[in-house]
């Protein structure tokens, strides 16, 4: 029971200021509150953070289901879960990177590259067992992640610039490799393509994989020293060095994890969609970041959970799926998505401010 999850929103300004906000104090005795009260406040706040998103999600589902009961049919729910799978996996990886105060904009390209690699392997080596190909797809992502990680952690350059660069690079490599080729469902074994149709306890297999990824990452970040150190590095890198945390390694690791997860997403993409060309995953990066941010992961590091990010991804995918059912005209859909993103982060901020106010027992400061 602790940690970044229950703290305030990122510093209002964009600059990565890590200072405590100067104000919002109460008289001393309120700052130094009783333990019991503090624990309870903390718990309440943390739950509130993710509850807000969950609430929005439930509300959206309820309204959609009311308008169009077909939304809750088995097929529809399965499709919804399948649809959210990729974004969820990517958002989990992205959150880990964001938590250490970096960002990985290359995920869309990495996913595309790995998906295409999977397809090419099936085409070029038809005899290869499916699990080997899948592992190779994840490996492609991992390698891309290592490239990003080395550049960011070893060369110590801003992640946004580096990954914007590798976004173009990986995509270029993908294009160059594909050179206009398209891989079709017929080129891939049925067993591989059928993975999305396999269900476990009523859930499609990819969704189960995504859930496992979320739980594993969440567990790790919360309960292991190296996981907590990711938060420390994102919260205040200078202080992290002073307490002896291997900062570079902690910055590096999330990039590799994120690359692997993007690779995994690529494999799942190949399995689900069956048609692969070099444009797979184009423009996905901002959506992934949006999912994480909507889920309460601070862009400037140090706070947020992968559970929140996963909920954010689920919310965004549900919005995408629900709008056609709500008969929102196709021309309006994107505008509504944008509005909902704004509403979500605004809501999140509001909750965070309320929480902070409660914690300090005073008013809040203007941004």
């Amino acid at each position, binding site marked *: 029971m602790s940690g970044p999850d229950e703290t305030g929103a990122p510093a209002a300004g964009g600059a990565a200021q890590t200072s405590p906000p100067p104000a919002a104090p109460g008289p001393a005795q309120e700052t130094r509150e009783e333990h019991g009260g503090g624990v309870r406040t903390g718990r309440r706040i943390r739950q509130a953070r993710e509850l807000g998103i969950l609430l929005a999600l439930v509300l959206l589902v309820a309204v959609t289901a009311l308008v169009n009961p077909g939304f809750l049919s088995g097929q529809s729910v399965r*499709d919804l879960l399948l*649809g959210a799978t990729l974004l969820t996996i990517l958002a989990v990886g992205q959150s880990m990177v964001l938590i250490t105060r970096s960002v990985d904009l290359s995920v869309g390209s990495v996913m595309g590259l790995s998906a295409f690699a999977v397809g090419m392997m099936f085409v070029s080596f038809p005899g290869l067992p499916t699990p080997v190909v899948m592992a190779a797809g994840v490996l492609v992502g991992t390698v891309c992640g290592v490239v990003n990680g080395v550049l960011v952690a070893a060369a110590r350059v801003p992640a946004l610039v580096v990954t914007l660069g590798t976004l173009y690079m990986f995509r270029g490599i993908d294009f160059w490799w594909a050179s*206009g080729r*398209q891989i079709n*469902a017929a080129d891939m074994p049925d067993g591989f393509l059928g993975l999305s149709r396999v269900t476990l306890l009523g859930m499609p297999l990819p969704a189960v994989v995504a859930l496992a990824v979320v739980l594993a990452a969440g567990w790790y970040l919360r309960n292991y020293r190296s996981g907590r150190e990711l938060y420390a590095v994102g919260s205040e890198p200078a202080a992290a060095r002073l307490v002896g945390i291997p900062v570079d390694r902690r910055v590096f690791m999330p990039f590799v994890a994120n690359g692997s997860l993007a690779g995994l997403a690529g494999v799942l993409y190949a399995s689900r*969609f069956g048609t692969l060309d070099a444009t797979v995953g184009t423009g996905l990066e901002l959506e992934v970041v949006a999912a994480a941010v909507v889920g309460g992961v601070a862009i400037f590091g140090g706070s947020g959970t992968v559970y929140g990010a996963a909920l954010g991804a689920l919310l965004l995918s549900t919005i995408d799926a629900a709008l056609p059912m709500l008969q929102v005209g*196709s021309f309006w859909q994107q505008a509504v998505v944008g509005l909902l993103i704004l509403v979500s982060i605004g809501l999140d901020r509001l909750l965070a401010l309320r929480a902070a106010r409660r914690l300090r027992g005073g008013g809040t400061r203007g941004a």
Partner: protein
Amino acid sequence: GGTTRGDGDGSGSGSGGSEAEADPNAEIPEGLKISFLPKQLNNPYFTVADSGGKEAVEELGGEFKEVGPSEANASSQVSYINTLSQQGSDVIVTAANDPNAVCGALNQARQAGSVVVTFDSDASPECRDLFISQASAEGIATIQVEMIAEQIGGEGEIAFLSATPNATNQNAWLKLMEEELKKDEYSGIEVVDTVYGNDDDQKSFNEMQGLLQTHPDLAGVISPTTVGLAAAARYLGSSDYKGEVALTGLGTPNQMREYVKDGTVEEFALWKPSDLGYLAAYAGASQSAGRITGEKGQTFKAGRLGEYEIGADGEIVLGPPTVFNKDNIDDFDF
């Protein structure tokens, strides 16, 4: 005062077309630089189309080149047009991402001496010399309506799954299809929705999914775009709606083979993209050599495809689309 829409200051910039007389016997010189600029590189459809172009250019002894943006947008196409014109291409064969946005650049290229041929997706007629139409728009519209009508037994709700909301050819077809559907024989068919998959696989997939869930009584879907059709077929094939909802449209045999064989899709249509590129190259070369000038009624020979006649507005129609089904799909590989 001010410049308003009614002012009639024409939007064209004047044609740069050649005024010379056509000489049907003119030699096509060796070494013509014929450049293909598709909507987007890495689009498999255009890869096939351009390969047809390449075949023709090689037959003509010219220099073939294929360039293009990695994203389908007009502005980067303009850069490529400028580059081609700067390089002194004799013939530019292009498929316009935006019929108007590329206009200025195309006209500049023509003024600099290039022949501009559009294929697949036309630019405004006043800024190109020839347009190679894959099939007449009417032909495409009619055949798709015929296919769906047959598959759903002549009545029921249908919907369209299109590409981007701005795609010229898509919109033209949609309009013609709706007109076609007004005919008495189709009175039992009602169009309930049009959605856009943006030629993006996942988006098309989601849109198809949305269509089926929003309209429980949907009988059929027409997707006049290869990406959309493939994505829709994939969704349909893996869902409970398989066999209940008919799906047809325009698609490539390679993409659709599986779904035709497993019964998800009965029939769909398409022209041969490689022939389209082939014809475009011949037309461009003929114009460049002076065999034709783009006037209606002129004819020229296009290699293995035979004689073609120029229609109104410099338009040349490739021929009727091919319908693919279980029986013939294995004869095609593209």
